[in-house]
């Protein structure tokens, strides 16, 4: 040390002393820093993101469940109709066949099997199925003739398919027992003579005449065009802008938004490409309302001095805060005078509150493809496509403002100004929807579906970076008229 100093090596001595030296700051330092850090950009967590739409999701889920329930009920009754039609067809042919069989065989026993018995078999496609024999079936057996005839099953739902089976029989009694067992419970066919399963597999299924199928036309009844009218109330979620360099305003600002509501009215013209796919386009009018409270925190030195021409030109300052608007941004400048003789310290913090209202009208031109899933009256519908957004107007107004520093007072006649920066009015987006459609009649169908509409990222030419995108989750109720 002594040598260092006397040899004018003070620099080395100081350097060595401070080399790797660390001093731990106060324990609350991180909290102080965190307090003034810009609002954290939300981490993309799907579940958290979905949570904010919990009510819409719950409503959509209930509707989807009801739609599925309706679909199942409808499917059940359709199946019943088909089954009845098939039974009618089978009964008539069975009557003829039975007569013929009785005439050529030595009938020793005729048994009637109750209609609720179940036969399990491997159908012609090789998969295991269950078939309900809802009609009265007759199994005619004879010990001597070694024949089985008259076993007929309905294959309308993919079950057993046997027509007028007559088998050569070595031991008729054994066969009789096997069949008794088979129809009384679900059995395997391994107990049958080897020829029977082979017959089951190769026999032709009973075909249901198309004339017997109930007339249930697809949605639109084969019509090609439709007009859709819809209304979609919803909520907006704005993707927050990341912090940007070189911008105006304070280092720290918090922002809280009231629930943002939007209502969209749609008129679309659609054309069916086939039974499943339609293409539709049209026009939608969307109105959005948003109320936001901004709380920027300035330091006095961040206020730009306003030249007043007098001796107190340093006592008037303007504080500028940039905020996001739909389709652009706005700079709100608050102008304040120093009250009294006490000038705030340069690093004195000044809290400001700016409350704003935004009323936006947007015209949308969607081009979507809709795919329909299912048959009958109730269909699942998936819609996806692109949307062109044109901002008709954006009425932004500052409804309240204040500075909380007692040494500062907002200027009476010139308290604030707003400067807009709107890069453009047109910006593209996308739309995705998943819902259900129910055909009321051949010409009319109604639909209900949650729809997500979002904007593609677009450049902020004023401040750099991307403008915050809007994502709207709405619930659409719509009606379509087919022609």
């Amino acid at each position: 040390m002594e040598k260092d100093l006397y040899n004018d090596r003070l620099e080395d001595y100081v350097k060595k002393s401070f080399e790797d030296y660390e001093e731990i700051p106060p324990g609350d330092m991180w909290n102080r820093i965190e307090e003034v850090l810009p609002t954290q950009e939300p981490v993309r967590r799907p579940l958290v993101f979905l949570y904010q739409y919990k009510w819409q999701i719950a409503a959509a889920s209930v509707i989807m469940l009801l739609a599925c329930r309706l679909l199942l009920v409808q499917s059940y009754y359709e199946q019943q109709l088909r089954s009845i039609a098939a039974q009618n067809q089978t009964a008539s042919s069975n009557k003829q066949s039975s007569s013929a069989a009785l005439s050529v065989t030595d009938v020793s026993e005729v048994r009637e099997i109750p209609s609720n018995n179940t036969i399990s078999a491997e159908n012609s496609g090789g998969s295991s199925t269950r078939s309900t024999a809802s009609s009265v079936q007759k199994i005619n057996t004879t010990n001597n003739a070694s024949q089985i005839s008259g076993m007929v099953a309905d294959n309308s739902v993919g079950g057993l398919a046997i027509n007028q089976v007559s088998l050569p029989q070595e031991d008729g009694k054994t066969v009789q027992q096997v069949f008794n067992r088979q129809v009384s419970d679900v059995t395997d066919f391994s107990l049958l003579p080897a020829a029977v399963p082979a017959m089951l597999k190769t026999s032709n299924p009973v075909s249901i005449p198309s004339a017997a199928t109930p007339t249930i036309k697809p949605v639109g009844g084969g019509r090609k065009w439709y007009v859709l009218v819809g209304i979609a109330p919803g909520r907006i979620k704005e993707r927050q802008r990341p912090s940007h360099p070189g911008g105006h305003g304070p280092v720290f600002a918090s922002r809280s938004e009231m629930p943002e509501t939007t209502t969209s009215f749609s008129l679309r013209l659609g054309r069916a490409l086939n039974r499943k796919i339609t293409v539709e386009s049209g026009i939608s009018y969307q109105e959005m309302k948003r109320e936001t409270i901004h709380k920027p925190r300035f330091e006095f030195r961040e206020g730009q001095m306003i030249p007043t021409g007098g001796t107190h030109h340093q006592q008037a300052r303007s504080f500028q805060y940039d905020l996001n608007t739909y389709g652009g941004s706005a700079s709100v400048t608050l102008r304040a005078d120093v009250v009294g003789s006490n000038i705030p310290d340069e690093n004195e913090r000044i809290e400001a509150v700016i409350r704003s209202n935004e009323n936006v009208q947007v015209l949308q031109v969607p081009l979507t493809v809709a795919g329909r899933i299912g048959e009958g009256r109730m269909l699942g519908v998936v819609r996806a496509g692109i949307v062109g957004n044109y901002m008709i107007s954006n009425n932004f107004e500052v409804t309240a403002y204040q500075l909380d520093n007692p040494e500062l007072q907002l200027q009476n006649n010139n308290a604030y100004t707003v400067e807009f920066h709107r890069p453009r009015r047109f910006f593209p987006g996308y739309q995705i929807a998943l819902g259900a459609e129910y055909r009321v009649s051949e010409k009319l169908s109604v639909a209900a579906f949650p729809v997500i509409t979002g904007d593609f990222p677009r450049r902020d030419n004023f401040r750099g970076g991307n403008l915050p995108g809007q994502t709207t989750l709405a619930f659409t109720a719509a009606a379509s008229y087919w022609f």
Partner: protein
Amino acid sequence: MTETELKACIRGDRRAQKAFFDRFRGKMFALCLRYASTREDAEDMLQEGFVRVFRDLHQYSGAGNFEGWVRKVFVNTALQYLQKQRRGPVIVELGSYDVATDDSPFFGEELPARNLIKVLQQLPTGFRTVFNLYVLEGYSHPEIAEILNISVGTSKSQLLRAKAYFRSLLEASLTT
């Protein structure tokens, strides 16, 4: 710091920012203490420095030493803080202080860094700033002149006086 950690900080991930803070808080607070005249001022510098680092982190190009970049941000923050605090240049008039000469007696005792900081904080702001920039940050006189908006000659003379004054304060502290 890994690229992933930096990206998380830029994104605003609080946990990543906290980890960043924990990593640099000790060194940066020591730096702030050297520039500030009081511990409270150093705390303010530290707070503002981290806020600026997180705000400007995306500007780090990846070239050069990352800690050096962070240090530079803190030095700039400290200088701006001092400048704002004084509402004027950080340079003081020569002759305003009674400085010791190079042949002052020396008592040959070492001081820990913590005490050395206290001595450093007794320096006038202008002296302390030039001393820090030249001796501890390694800036040259032309660079200091540009940073502080002074002439090279002023920078040199400020350093000379600062060193002499620092030495006298050091010796005084050792005698007490």
